[in-house]
């Protein structure tokens, strides 16, 4: 019981640290703003535009995965401190929670895109699972690369490339399976 209480205290402190970082607010604005701009721009013609072979919502979701693939590793690298190493587990959980919220922030805009295509709310919720999986992946890759590579810049770049590479591979396999 005391251990759980201790973890809660550390988690609370880590969440406070992340919330104080300006990078978190900037990432929140960039993610939501870029997705709003894409959804409105791509639906500003007579009918919504889409990538070949995909619906409007799925096309916008691909853009969202690309945006988050670039944005989340940067945000994690900026907001999570690496020392002392003994608190890494709590930091990872706090970062995962914060990034999940950041990734979820564009859901209303994605829901509008989903409704333009008439794909159904369930379709939008399933798409959100992919986004949440990406946020967890981004936290894991950044923290893993930071342990392997002590240079912050190189660690961030490696984490970004890894995250985007994994997302691209998963999307390719999903398309191949279809």
């Amino acid at each position: 019981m005391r251990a759980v209480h201790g973890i809660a205290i550390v988690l609370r402190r880590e969440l406070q640290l992340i919330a104080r970082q300006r990078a978190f607010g900037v990432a929140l604005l960039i993610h939501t703003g870029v997705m709003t701009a894409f959804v409105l721009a791509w639906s500003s013609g007579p009918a919504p535009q889409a990538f070949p072979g995909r619906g409007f919502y799925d096309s916008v979701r691909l853009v969202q995965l690309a945006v988050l693939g670039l944005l989340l590793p940067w945000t994690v690298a900026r907001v999570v401190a690496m020392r002392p190493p003994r608190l890494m587990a709590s930091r990872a959980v706090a970062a995962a929670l914060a990034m999940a919220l950041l990734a979820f922030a564009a859901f209303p805009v994605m829901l509008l895109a989903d409704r333009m295509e008439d794909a159904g709310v369930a379709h939008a919720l399933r798409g959100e699972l992919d986004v949440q999986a990406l946020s967890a992946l981004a936290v894991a890759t950044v923290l893993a690369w930071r342990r392997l590579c002590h240079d912050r810049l190189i660690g961030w770049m490696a984490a970004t490339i890894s995250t985007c590479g994994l997302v691209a591979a998963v999307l390719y396999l999903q398309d191949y399976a279809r």
Partner: protein
Amino acid sequence: VFVIGRLLAIALLAAPAADAPLLTAEAGLDGVGRPGRWLPVRVTIDARTEDINGDLVAEWGRARVRRALILPAPSRVEFDLYIRTGDVRDVVLVRLEQGGRETSRVTLPVRIVGVEDQTALTVPAGRWPHSWRGYDAADALMFDTGDAPSARSDRDALALWRALRDAGDADRALPAAEPVPPASSPASHAATTAILYTIAIAAVPLLVRRGRSRVLLLYPAIALVVAGGSAAAWATGRSSAIVVRHQSFAEQFEGAATTLVSMRATAQYPADEDFSLRADTMDGVLDGVSSSASGDETRLDAEGRPMLDHRAGLGSTESFSVEATSGFRAFDVTHDGPRTRIVNVSTAALDRCEFPPAFSTAAADRLAPGQSIESSSVITGPDPIVACRFAGAPLAFTEPHHAVTTSGSTLVVYHLAGARDQ
């Protein structure tokens, strides 16, 4: 009375059950159908012991008309369906569907007549078509009895068909149509919600205090704004109106009480829902241009109003056309010797009017409601017309769950009795 022949086909399902609804029908005026012309199908349904809640479907070639049917037992109903195709067959199939299952069917023979053949058809006594379309296959009519139709709507239908035939139908000279006003983009339906939400989510980190004790409020505040934004995104457009943009022709004919309306239009839907757009007329057809799922099917509701069922996305647009008759009238025309007086009897100001040469060259190109104009001499010419434009629609639309607003203009044309008639 010359009765050349009458092919009246009445068929029943083979050995129908005692409680099955009795479906009888007859196809074609005098049993005749022509490619590209309307074919009347008069249907009688007798719900003897069980209520009927289903669809009545008539098929001729690739064309199909489907009318919703709600009939409590015991009762009997008779109505006309009109079907048109270039791909004609010598039979029309009429069937009753309930719960997605066919419960009755009749097959009706049709005598096909070529487009170029001159056809005089006989109207059976008491079997007057209720629409001008019922006479469309005929070039000339003969009557079993000398009586005129007793119902006013039947008399109007016959008068409109005669006026159409006299005006030359396809040869009628009409001013050029304007394009349908462009629809707004789907983005315009979502922009307010999306932009307000983005501003709200951007403001959260700025508004939450960076103090030591309250900084954790950032997370529930973001969650709250996302929840509110999601609710707003879900609700966007759900109570908004469908917007119908149209370009319409309304043709009045001297001697006919009803107006022939043709309309090209788009409907823009405010939400991702099922919509059932209905034209406010009992005599017409509403064809979706972009909906391919239903093929050549046209639909009517249980009252006989043409309707367009569509599963829409937020801000999506569908093109459609309407052919109908309407009680709308823009002009009232009276003759006093050689003079002809035209009055604007509508509630709209009529603009950019064009008059035959018999009217003064200084004639106003605008007629306010109630305003009239008079010719100075006898009107001549093969098909003299008066044409004006107004901002509005000659036909209203309804939808069971949403308001419908219309925007666009109508070219209203009055075909005057010309030299040929005089």
